[in-house]
Every structure is written in C-alpha cells, then in structure tokens.
C-alpha cells in the first residue's frame, strides 16, 4: 500500500469513527435528557453552533455535528489523496483530485447548501 492509499484510508477511518462517536454521544445524551433543547431538528452549521454554545448544551448539536463530519469525510479523503499525489510527484492525479474537489464544491453551491 502506497502513501496515497494509506493516507486516504486513514482519513476515511478517522472521519467515520469521529462522525459515529459524535452521533452516538448526541443521541444518547438527548435520550437521557429531560429538558427540551434549543431545537428539535438542526439543519445548518450555524444552528449546530447555537446548539453547542447553548447552556446547558443541546446534545442534538453533537449528533448533527457527527452527521456533518460523516458528509465531509469523502471530500476530505479526496483532498488528502490530492496532497499525497503531489508529494509523490504525480501531477496528473493532483489535477484530477483538484477537479473532483472543485466540482463537488460547485455541486454544493448549485444545491444551495
């Protein structure tokens, strides 16, 4: 396994574990909590910030942060692959990775996210 595969699989592993851990903490915390939080459904990064800065902290904020972490992980993996390709001197695949990341960001913009 070369650097590209090693780094990319590591980013996928860390992102997956982090995302799921945050979701589990959020959902368990929310289930154990009797007091109503800041929001029943968090639908933006801004609302995650509000939920986590609220006192007491709304555990659903952690769950939503975990969901976002899961979604960002593939994008982070591609960006990491691009860096690894650069260090290996593979300029063609640096360009390919950059095109994929740019197109993904463009699609997010089209989606109004």
């Amino acid at each position, binding site marked *: 396994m070369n650097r590209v595969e090693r780094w990319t699989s*590591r980013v996928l592993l860390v992102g997956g574990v982090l995302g799921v851990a945050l979701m589990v903490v959020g959902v368990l915390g*929310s289930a154990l909590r009797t007091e109503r939080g800041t929001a029943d459904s968090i639908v933006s990064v801004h609302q995650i910030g509000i939920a986590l800065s609220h006192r007491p902290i709304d555990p659903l904020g952690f*769950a939503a942060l975990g969901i976002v972490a899961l979604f960002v992980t593939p994008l982070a993996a591609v960006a990491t692959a691009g860096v690894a390709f650069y260090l290996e001197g593979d300029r063609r695949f640096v360009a390919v990775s950059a095109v994929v990341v740019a197109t993904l960001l463009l699609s997010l913009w089209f989606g109004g996210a």
Partner: protein
Amino acid sequence: MSPLLFVTAILLTSTVAGVAGAILGLGGGILLVPVLTMFFGVDLRGAMGASIVSVIATSIGAAGAYLRSGLSNIRIGLFLAMATVSGAIVGAALVGVVPERALELILGGALAYSALVTLRQLNLDVPEDPPYDALALRFGLEGAYYDATLDREVKYRATRVRRGAVAMFGAGVLSGLLGIGSGAFKVLAMDYFMRLPMKVSTATSNFMIGITASASAAIFFGRGDIRPVIACPVAVGVLGGAYLGTRLLSRLRNTTVRKIFLPVIVYLAAAMVFCGLGVHLP
C-alpha cells in the same frame, strides 16, 4: 414499538444493508428505504435522508478497508468521479426540464440490457488480456490485488475508458435528476465497459459512491430530512455491516459477486420501467 426495539431493529437492518452494500458496491438505500417506510413507519423523506447517511457510511466503512487491501483502485475511482460528479451537476440543472418518466423508461431499458450482458458473462471470473487503451495507459488505470479464492495475484488494466466515462456521466445525470444513488450503474460501467474484475468494480464503486453522495448530502441535511434518531443507528449498523462485508468479499469469487449482483439490477430495471409507466414498486 418501544424506542429501544425500534433502534435495535433499525441497527440490525442497517447492518444487513452495510454487508450487501460493501459486497455489491451499492449504498444500501435499495434495501433501507422500503424497509424503513413499510415496516418502521418512517416517512419517505426521512427514509431517503437515512439512505444518504447509509451510502456515505457504507463508502467510508468499505472503501477504507478496500484501499488497504488493494481491491479499490483510487486512480480509477477519482478519474471516473470527475465524470460522475459533473453528470450530477448537469442532472440537477435539468430537473424540471427533462420529463422524468421518459428518462426512467430509457434507463430501465439500459439496465435490462445490462442485465442480459451480465447474464452472458456470468461465469467470467477475471477478464483475460483486455485491449490496450491510450487513456488508461496515460493515467495508469491499472492495478493488482491478491485473490484469496484463486490463490494468486490478479493483475488488471482498464480498457474502453471513454465509454466507461460516458456511462459514469450518465450515472451522475441520473443521480442529480432523480435524487437516487447510482452504484449499480457505476459497477456495470466498470465491469462491462472497462473490463475490470467484478470485485475491483464493486470495491472502487464503494469509494466513489461516498464522493458523489456527499455532494447531495448537504441538501438533505439543509431540508431537515436527516433525523439523528434514525441516522445514528443507521450509520452505526451500516459501518459495522460494511466492515463485515469487506471481510466477506475477499472470500468470494468474482463470479459469485456477479451472481448476487444480477437479481439486484433485474429488480432495479423493473422498478425503473414500472416507475416510468407510473406504477411504483416497493
């Protein structure tokens, strides 16, 4: 149903979806959406939100392991992702312009044809000596993996890359236009057009589906369709299932994977044709 039983049942279903997704290169939504809506009373939007979580979790859980084992080819995945993500943007821009039913009929027909092709090469284990392709050579779209069932290293290289990229673009258009995952099309494009071993096709598809799904995930999240109470057990179950699936795939023959894959595309073809005719299958 008590909340504990509800979560446990979703967790078990998602584990099965994760195993199937990791072996077949699909997101698992094909299994999850009908089960969540029919047996758990989750509304369609909530089920589709859970499905997108399932696609990404399958991809993360399976692709990491497949990259380590050499089954997933990151160069082929990224090269084809350019076509798929571009297609998804075009598809999203065509929403409301192209009649969806006509498209569903065309794609259903294409899938039915692909099913016939898959049937013809059902017993083909590893494609032998495919013709050289200039694009594949320039971008190094080749690789090798150790096949435990054959007890040898299998070397492969992609061919007919342009056709594969066009098929991937079509898969992307489908994703953007209809809001569905297109893992089946990705696997077919790599298996049929590019003559990659079936296991490499499903493993590389696993890497790609996460990339394309992350583009649409933000939209689902922003609409409030992803509910943590459902998404959390789905993600945990699918990640665990995907890990189990990666262990299983290494012990399966390419022909076995193709035999498991065939009924799935037959079902998808039928579902798409019926959808185009205005009849919705579960």
